[in-house]
Each structure stands twice: as structure tokens, then as C-alpha cells.
């Protein structure tokens, strides 16, 4: 379990700085350091086993169906990275405490750093591909927050955006790659994937996998051609650059390639991609490092170059090259973090990072100078520093490779060239900063010279520690580095490794000569630096951020163009497009059908059917044709509704017929009411072209639907009906299967449905608030409407009908479980009967006799239904489990009382409440009781 504590500690560490930042900078930093240091100790406690070659792992199932486990591991490679992340990370946190100016939000900064640390640690420790990917994305997000920490600066915002876009795109590609790997290997567990390397390499998608994974890794590690985001990420505060852009995040890509080497590596494709990308990156970035004027820019390009070096080593792929890659990851992190810290110090003290404005700093800041000198020498690869050792190994391995066939000799040449450039920019950094005089323009010379001095010891200490480490590792590689590097290279290779012989002196050999050439060449290049700079001016400067921004702007413009095309604010346009898409899709489906008529037998027609169909068609076409004569249109619509109800009667659906009929009544009342508020005769403003288009769309859609329905009707269908028919009486206690389905089998659906109904009612309540009315006094022809508001005959008849209707509705409700009927229908009948009272006698009269609040009724109906459902929990059953029993009442006879009945009562109340809420409110608007401006 101690494995789990390592990330848990750093997660806990995220909140520590936020909580402690008000107690002062020092307390905050010290408190924040506790978690990573403890985590480091925990990681180191696993070291003995790991260095002996074991893999310590922990598996906790998380989402086993997705293959996602909370699986962690520590092997040599993880240990190496954990040391960098937690060790160098702690030093940088300490350094950041001194670097940030007093008024900056250190709590937020340190919290972001800890978030990033957690994410990075997760990548290193994950033993599951999906988990690894989750942490990978988290590093992208947290690095976005860190690069953009100074959000008031536009370069910081732009740099952060670019980093997120590039690494985010890589992350998505990586996910696709991982999914393919998982598919090929049959598992997402990292250990099993690494062991199944042969299967993955033989997979048909291997090329695609390599492309996707390398896209992710190259974007993250800023490899050519995705290198451009890293120099712009230097807008971040320097501790961020030191941590993310030298020691850790950009190493994530390299880490990934190393991690997956046993599964994907050792093929020509893999080696070639890595070698070529590595070589190109190494040379290209080293050249730009030489030309750059911004100190952090120099370090950024040099980082890119060194990452290229590591990629190249991974591409060479021999056991010693892989070991050298692991070794260089360690070495580079040490000296580059130290260099970033020293540049941060100079920026902090001098207020500028322009290498031309700085110079002759040695006398003023000797300690910073020493730090830069040590770390810079390591970067140049000069003995006896650690950078020399891994570079020697690269030179040696570049001579051994036969990757490019007869062209292989070009690799050592290019490596020496890159090493030469590397010596040159390292020496330039040291020489221009500390020994040469600043190259000032005339105006700058007029200003007083820079007065700088060494910073507080706390700011120097972490950098000096790392610089001394790079010397010590160079001097005693076998003691300090060999165990770790051997364990890491074991993990990279997935098989046993040859004995490493890390030493400064290997005798006089070819690599040593190449090193000497590189150093000598570097000095020459440095002396001629001005000429190189002059050559560089021949090429037009290409600012990657400009290109990137321009691309983003282009994408946005294209999206805008498309959006304006599709979304011009016309509902008619949207609907036409939607129908067109639906047509296309259904059309494709129909095309795949061999024949429209299926195997099922056809039924014969009779006169009633033909008459009904004719009436329905007449009604539909009539209502479409007469849509400007709105009352006629509604009447035509009601013909269709009636025919639909009759169709339900004919085809054995009594429940549906009853429901349709009662809904029909309520809908018609609603529509006629609404007519009162809408224009009576809209102007005819429509072009023939538009009518033709709509007709074509409508007829095509109707045709397609008719064909679809015909195809459906003439085919035998498999149904789950048997289950419901069988279980209705024994399981649900009712013989009306439709009702049993509604209140019992699929009670949850019904519950959702009455909720929607109630919500619609409540929403209309709100919509009718503060309504401005257009109330006409007469019809289109100008005839005033009748002033006799409540005809006597209707009033009398409706009063007589009310008790009868309520009786019918109770009857329908009670028998609903066994005979056609139920809560829905009973509710609608009750609502209609009450509505009739409103219509016959007016709102005031009815209101005085029926002082109830319909929203309360609807909501209490919901409450009853919910209580019935929850009630089954009390008896230890799942939500909405129904129970029932038989009872005998005198006169009425035997009947069943089921808990489903109570649920149906809830349905009944909700339907009554919601229906009346809608209609009575709309009706009320015409009276003096309309919701006023005060009522909200």
C-alpha cells in the first residue's frame, strides 16, 4: 500500500500551500515541501528491491469493464523519474519561494506546481495505459496553468495556449494509440502489454500505433517538427521552466518512448523514426540556441536539442544506447535545472535576460558565476562533468550503428556537428555573461551600468547543489549513478542488460577524439559567432507563434463561416436542413433493404378501414391546406385525431383509444383558447419557390416514412411481449397488461413522464406571467363577438354532467388495473369535466366553488408516486417494487388492491393538476385575474 501513498501525498500537497499561504512565504514553502519529501522517502524505501531488478506494483480495480485499474508500479525507470520529479521538484519549490516577488500569489503558484508534480508522478508510476494517459492529460492542463501563471501578460497567455493546443492534440493521438495497443494486446495493464511486445508488433495496426504514440511523445518532448511551442512556453516564471521544461514534463515524451520500448521498439520503423527525428531536432535546435539572445530562449533550444539527443539514443536501440539514454535523462535534468536556476537569478537581479545587455558579471556575482560555469561545462560535455560521460556513450554508439546501411557513417558526423554546436552555445553563455563586456547600443551605454550582486543564499543553494552533483556524478559515476541507470535501462529494454562501465577514462579511442574535435570546433564556432549570426539574417525570421496564431485564426474563420452558413437565425432553415439529413440517412437504410415487402402475410381491407383512412387523409390534407384559416385547420386536425382514436379501437388498443380521445378534447380546448391570442389571419407572404421546396421535402419524407412503415408491417418481428403477458397477473396483479406495464414493470418511466407533465405545467405558469395581450374585439370581418359570455344551456348541462363525469372517472380509475382504464385516462376525464365548468360558468364562479391550487395537486401527485416508490425500500425491495392483495367489498365485489394502485393515484393527481394548471391559467389571462406586473 505504500505505493499508493506516494501520489496520495503529493495530491494532499496541492491543498497545503493554499491553506498556509496567509502565514507568510517561508511557512508556506516549508509546509509545501513536507509532502514531496515524504513521498521521496517512500519512493526511496522501495529502492533496494527495485535496484535488485524487481518491479514493485499495486493493483486496485477501478473500472474493470473498461480495463481501467488504479495500478501503480515502481521499476528502475520509474525510480529514476521519481527521483527527478520529487528530488529536483523539491529543490525548485524551495527556489521558487525566493524567486517569486513578495506580492505574488505563492499559494496558487505552489498549488499548481504540486498538481503538476502529482500528474508527472502519475505518468511515471502508472501501470495501466489508460491511467497513464489520464495523468498525461493532467500534465498538459497543469502546465497550461503554470505557463499562463502571469495571466496579465499576453505572451504568457499565448505561450500557454500554444502549449496546450500542441500537447493536447498529442494527448488525443496518444489515447487513440493506447486504445489500439490495448486492442492488439488484449489488455491495458502495462506489465502485460510490455510482455506482449511480439503480439503488438505483429498487429495489423502497428504502423498506426507507432505513428499515434510518437505523435503524442514528440509533441510533448518538443521533437522536430513539433518543437516550436517550447521556446514560447518560456513566458512562464523561471521555476516553472526549470521544473517543467528541463527536468520533467518535456521528458514525459522521452519517458513514454522508453517505457513502451519493450512493446513497440526494436523494429526498423521505430528505430528510423526516432533516429531521424532525434538527429534533426538535435541539430536544428542547437543551431537556434547559438543564435538566440534571450537567456531562457538559449536554454529552451538547448533543452530541445538534448531531448533530441535522448530520442536519438532510444532510436539507436542497442543495450548500451538505451542505458546511455537513461543516463542522459538523469544528467540533463541535473545540469539544466541548475542552469535555469542561475538564469532565473540573473533575470531576478539584473532585470533583463538579453545576453547582449549582460556581461562581465563575474566580479559582481562570483557564486552565480561558479554555478553557471559548472553546469554550463556539463552541458557542453567537458570532462570531468556528467554530461561528458553520456555524450561519450552516444559518440561510441553512433559509431556502432548500421541503421542507415551504407549511409550509417553520416550519423557520427552529424552527432559531432551537434556536439560542436552544443559546446559553442554553452561556452557563449558562460563567456558573454561573465567575462566579455556587454554589447550595448549607444542609448544603452548612456544609462548607468548594471549594479548586481549574488542573491540570498537560499536562492543559490539549490542550483549550487545540483551543479556540484553534476560534477560528483562525473567523478564517481559507478557509485552514484550506475545502480540507478542499470535498473532503468533494464526497464527500458525489458530484458537483462550488459554490465555498464561508466568511467571518465576509457583510454585513447575514437569517441575521445571526436569529443576533442567537438570542443575545439566549439571554440572556433564561438569566435566566429558574429558571422554565423550574419548568415542567419539571410533567412527570413519565422516566428512560430505568429504562424500558429495565424493557423488558429484561420480555423476560427472557417468555423465562423460554416456556422453563419448553417445558423442564420431562421428556424425554417434549420428544420429544412434537419429533415434533409434525416431523409438522407433513412434513404441509405432503405437502399440496403432488398425488398420492401416482407414475408408476413397481408391482411385484407374492408369498407370501414377505407372510410377511416380516407377521413384521416382528408383531415390531414385539409388542415395543411387551410392553415391560414386557423379555426378550420383545428377542426380538420380534430378529424384526424378522431380517426387515430378509432384506429386504436379497431386494432385492439382500448387504453390508447380512451387516452387519445380524452387528450384530444383537452388539446382542442387549448388550441382554440390559444387562437384568441394569436393573429387571426396572417398575411400571405410566401414565394412559390419556398412552397415548392417545402412540398418536395414533405412529400419525400412522407414517402420514406410510409415505405418504412410498410416494410415494418410486412415483417415478422421478435418481441418481448411474452414476458409481460406471462408475468402480468402473477407478477403485477392485474390483467390489463398495458396498465401493469405503466404502473409496475416500467413504473420508473411513468414517474419520469408525470414529472415532465408537471414541469410543463409549471413552466406555462411562468410563461404566462406579465403577459402583454393583443385582445381582439371581433373577428376578421369586423363582426363583434357575442357578449353573452356564459350560455344558460351549457351552464345547466355541464352542472348535471359533472357528478356523472366524476363517477365515470372513478370507475375508470378503479378498474384500470384489470380492464382498460387507469390513472392517465381517469385524470384526463376529471380534468375535462372540471374544464367544462370553467367554460360554462367562468373563472370566478368555478374558482369560488373549487378553491384549490392546481400546482399543489400536481406536485402532491408526484409526491404520492415517489412515496410509493420509496416505500418499497422500507420492505427491502428496489425502488418502485409493487405488491398487491385481493380484497372483497360488498356490492362492488372482488377486487385487487395493489401498491401500484397508489402509484396510479399519483399519476391521476399529476395529470389532473398539470392539465388544469395549463388550461385554467391560459383561460384566466382573458379575465381581470390575469397575472399582473406585481405577481412574479
Amino acid at each position, binding site marked *: 500500500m505504500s505505493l499508493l501513498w506516494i501520489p496520495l501525498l503529493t495530491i494532499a500537497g496541492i491543498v497545503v500551500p493554499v491553506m498556509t499561504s496567509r502565514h507568510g512565504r517561508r511557512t508556506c514553502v516549508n509546509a509545501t515541501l513536507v509532502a514531496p519529501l515524504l513521498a521521496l522517502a517512500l519512493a526511496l524505501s522501495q529502492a533496494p528491491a527495485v535496484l535488485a531488478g524487481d518491479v514493485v506494483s499495486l493493483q486496485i480495480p477501478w473500472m474493470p469493464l473498461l480495463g481501467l485499474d488504479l495500478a501503480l508500479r515502481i521499476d528502475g525507470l520509474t525510480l529514476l523519474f521519481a527521483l527527478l520529479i520529487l528530488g529536483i521538484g523539491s529543490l525548485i519549490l524551495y527556489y521558487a519561494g525566493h524567486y517569486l516577488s513578495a506580492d505574488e500569489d505563492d499559494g496558487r503558484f505552489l498549488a499548481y506546481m504540486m498538481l503538476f508534480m502529482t500528474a508527472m508522478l502519475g505518468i511515471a508510476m502508472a501501470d495501466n495505459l489508460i491511467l497513464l494517459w489520464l495523468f498525461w492529460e493532467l500534465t498538459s492542463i497543469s502546465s497550461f496553468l503554470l505557463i499562463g501563471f502571469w495571466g496579465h501578460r499576453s505572451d504568457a497567455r499565448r505561450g500557454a495556449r500554444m502549449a496546450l493546443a500542441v500537447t493536447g492534440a498529442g494527448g488525443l493521438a496518444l489515447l487513440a494509440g493506447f486504445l489500439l495497443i490495448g486492442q492488439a494486446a488484449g489488455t491495458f495493464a502495462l506489465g502485460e502489454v510490455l510482455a506482449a511486445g511480439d503480439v503488438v508488433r505483429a498487429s495489423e495496426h502497428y504502423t498506426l500505433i507507432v505513428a499515434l504514440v510518437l505523435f503524442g511523445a514528440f509533441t510533448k518532448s518538443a521533437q522536430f517538427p513539433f518543437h516550436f511551442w517550447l521556446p514560447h512556453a518560456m513566458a512562464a516564471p523561471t521555476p516553472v521552466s526549470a521544473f517543467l521544461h528541463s527536468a520533467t514534463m518535456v521528458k514525459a515524451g522521452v519517458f513514454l518512448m522508453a517505457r513502451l520500448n519493450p512493446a513497440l521498439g526494436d523494429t526498423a520503423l521505430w528505430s528510423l523514426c526516432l533516429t531521424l527525428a532525434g538527429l534533426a531536432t538535435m541539430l536544428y535546435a542547437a543551431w537556434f540556441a547559438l543564435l538566440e539572445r534571450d537567456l531562457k530562449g538559449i536554454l529552451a533550444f538547448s533543452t530541445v536539442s538534448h531531448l533530441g539527443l535522448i530520442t536519438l539514443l532510444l532510436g539507436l536501440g542497442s543495450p548500451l544506447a538505451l542505458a546511455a539514454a537513461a543516463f542522459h535523462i538523469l544528467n540533463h535534468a541535473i545540469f539544466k535545472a541548475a542552469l535555469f536556476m542561475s538564469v532565473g537569478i540573473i533575470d531576478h537581479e539584473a532585470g533583463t535576460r538579453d545576453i547582449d545587455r549582460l556581461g562581465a558579471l563575474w566580479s559582481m556575482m562570483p557564486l552565480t558565476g561558479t554555478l553557471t560555469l559548472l553546469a554550463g561545462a556539463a552541458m557542453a560535455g567537458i570532462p570531468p562533468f556528467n554530461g561528458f560521460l553520456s555524450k561519450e556513450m552516444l559518440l561510441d554508439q553512433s559509431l556502432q550503428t548500421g541503421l542507415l546501411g551504407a549511409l550509417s557513417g553520416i550519423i557520427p558526423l552529424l552527432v559531432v556537428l551537434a556536439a560542436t554546436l552544443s559546446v559553442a552555445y554553452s561556452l557563449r553563455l558562460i563567456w558573454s555573461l561573465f567575462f566579455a563586456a556587454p554589447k550595448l547600443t549607444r542609448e544603452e551605454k548612456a544609462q548607468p551600468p548594471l549594479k548586481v550582486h549574488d542573491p540570498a543564499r537560499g536562492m543559490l543553494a539549490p542550483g549550487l547543489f545540483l551543479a556540484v552533483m553534476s560534477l560528483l556524478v562525473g567523478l564517481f559515476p559507478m557509485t552514484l549513478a550506475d545502480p540507478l541507470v542499470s535498473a532503468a535501462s533494464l526497464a527500458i529494454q525489458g530484458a537483462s542488460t550488459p554490465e555498464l562501465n561508466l568511467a571518465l577514462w576509457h583510454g585513447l579511442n575514437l569517441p575521445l577524439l571526436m569529443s576533442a574535435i567537438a570542443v575545439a570546433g566549439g571554440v572556433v564556432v564561438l569566435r566566429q559567432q558574429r558571422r554565423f549570426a550574419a548568415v542567419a539574417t539571410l533567412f527570413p525570421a519565422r516566428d512560430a507563434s505568429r504562424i500558429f496564431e495565424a493557423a488558429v485564426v484561420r480555423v476560427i474563420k472557417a468555423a465562423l463561416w460554416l456556422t453563419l452558413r448553417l445558423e442564420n437565425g431562421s428556424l425554417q432553415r434549420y428544420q429544412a436542413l434537419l429533415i434533409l439529413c434525416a431523409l438522407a440517412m433513412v434513404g441509405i437504410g432503405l437502399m440496403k433493404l432488398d425488398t420492401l415487402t416482407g414475408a408476413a402475410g397481408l391482411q385484407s381491407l374492408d369498407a370501414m378501414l377505407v372510410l377511416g383512412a380516407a377521413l384521416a387523409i382528408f383531415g390531414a390534407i385539409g*388542415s395543411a391546406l387551410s392553415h391560414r384559416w386557423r379555426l378550420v385547420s383545428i377542426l380538420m386536425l380534430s378529424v384526424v385525431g378522431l380517426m387515430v382514436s378509432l384506429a386504436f379501437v379497431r386494432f385492439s388498443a382500448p387504453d390508447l383509444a380512451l387516452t387519445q380521445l380524452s387528450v384530444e378534447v383537452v388539446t382542442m380546448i387549448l388550441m382554440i383558447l390559444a387562437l384568441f391570442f394569436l393573429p387571426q389571419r396572417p398575411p400571405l407572404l410566401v414565394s412559390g419557390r419556398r412552397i415548392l421546396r417545402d412540398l418536395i421535402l414533405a412529400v419525400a419524407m412522407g414517402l420514406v416514412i410510409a415505405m418504412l412503415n410498410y416494410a415494418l408491417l410486412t415483417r415478422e418481428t421478435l418481441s418481448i411481449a411474452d414476458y409481460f403477458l406471462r408475468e402480468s397477473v402473477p407478477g403485477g396483479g392485474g390483467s*390489463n*397488461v398495458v396498465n401493469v406495464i405503466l404502473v409496475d414493470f416500467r413504473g420508473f418511466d411513468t414517474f419520469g413522464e408525470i414529472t415532465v407533465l408537471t414541469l410543463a405545467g409549471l413552466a406555462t405558469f411562468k410563461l404566462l406571467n406579465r403577459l402583454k395581450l393583443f385582445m381582439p374585439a371581433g373577428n376578421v370581418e369586423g363582426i363583434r363577438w357575442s357578449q353573452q359570455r356564459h350560455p344558460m344551456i351549457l351552464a345547466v348541462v355541464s352542472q348535471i354532467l359533472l357528478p356523472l363525469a366524476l363517477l365515470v372517472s372513478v370507475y375508470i380509475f378503479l378498474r384500470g388495473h384489470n380492464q*382498460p382504464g387507469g390513472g392517465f385516462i381517469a385524470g384526463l376525464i376529471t380534468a375535462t369535466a372540471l374544464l367544462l365548468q370553467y367554460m360554462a360558468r367562468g373563472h370566478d364562479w368555478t374558482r369560488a366553488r373549487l378553491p384549490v391550487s392546481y400546482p399543489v395537486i400536481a406536485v402532491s401527485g408526484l409526491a404520492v408516486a415517489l412515496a410509493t416508490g420509496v416505500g418499497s425500500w422500507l420492505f427491502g425491495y428496489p425502488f418502485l417494487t409493487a405488491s398487491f392483495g385481493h380484497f372483497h367489498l360488498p356490492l362492488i365485489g372482488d377486487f385487487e388492491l395493489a401498491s401500484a394502485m397508489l402509484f396510479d393515484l399519483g399519476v391521476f393527481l399529476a395529470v389532473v393538476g398539470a392539465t388544469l394548471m395549463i388550461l385554467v391559467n391560459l383561460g384566466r389571462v382573458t379575465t381581470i385575474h390575469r397575472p399582473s406586473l406585481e405577481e412574479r
Partner: protein
Amino acid sequence: MEALFSLVVGVLTACGIYLLLRGRTFPVIIGLSLLSYAVNLFLFSSGGLRTNSAPVIGASISPTDPLPHALVLTAIVIGFAMTAFVVILAVRARSELGSDHVDGQQGEEGDTR
């Protein structure tokens, strides 16, 4: 008979779609109702069209598939809730905008199309 049923459903759909594409709120509401009828009939027919076989145990020898009935019953009631909401939305839109055009503007020839 299957062909006739399909024809009715198709005509209802076509009329519904045509009305949906009109520029005023009221025809759109009518169109929506017509389309609901068509959809309900379509779904209903997926259980088979049979006479004298109501899905009530004991009332018929071989009851028809009750599931589409339950689904359509739900759809009818939800359809009512939706129609009611749209109707009142249309009333409200007219009162706010002074027009019953679906795009919320009293248009010229070009807009109303």
C-alpha cells in the same frame, strides 16, 4: 391493409412536415400535432395490427403485444404536455415580439418565405 395504413402514416407525416416548415407559429403547432399522430401510429404498428386481441388477460385468446401500447400511451400524454408548452410559448412570443413569426420578426417578403 398494411399498404393503406402506411399510406395514412405517410400522408400525416408529409402534411405535418409541410406545416412544420411554415413561417408562423400556429401552423407549426398544428404540424407538430399531425407529426405526433403519425409517429404514434408508426410506433403502435410495430406491435402488429390485429383485431379483437386486446392485451387484457382473459379478454382475448391471443393478446397482442402490449409494449407498444404502453409506449404510445406515454407518448400521447407527453405529446400533450409538449403541445401545451409550445402553444403557450407561441402566445408568449407573440406578446413579447408583436409577431407570430417563428424567427421572431415580422418579416418582409424575403424573411417570411
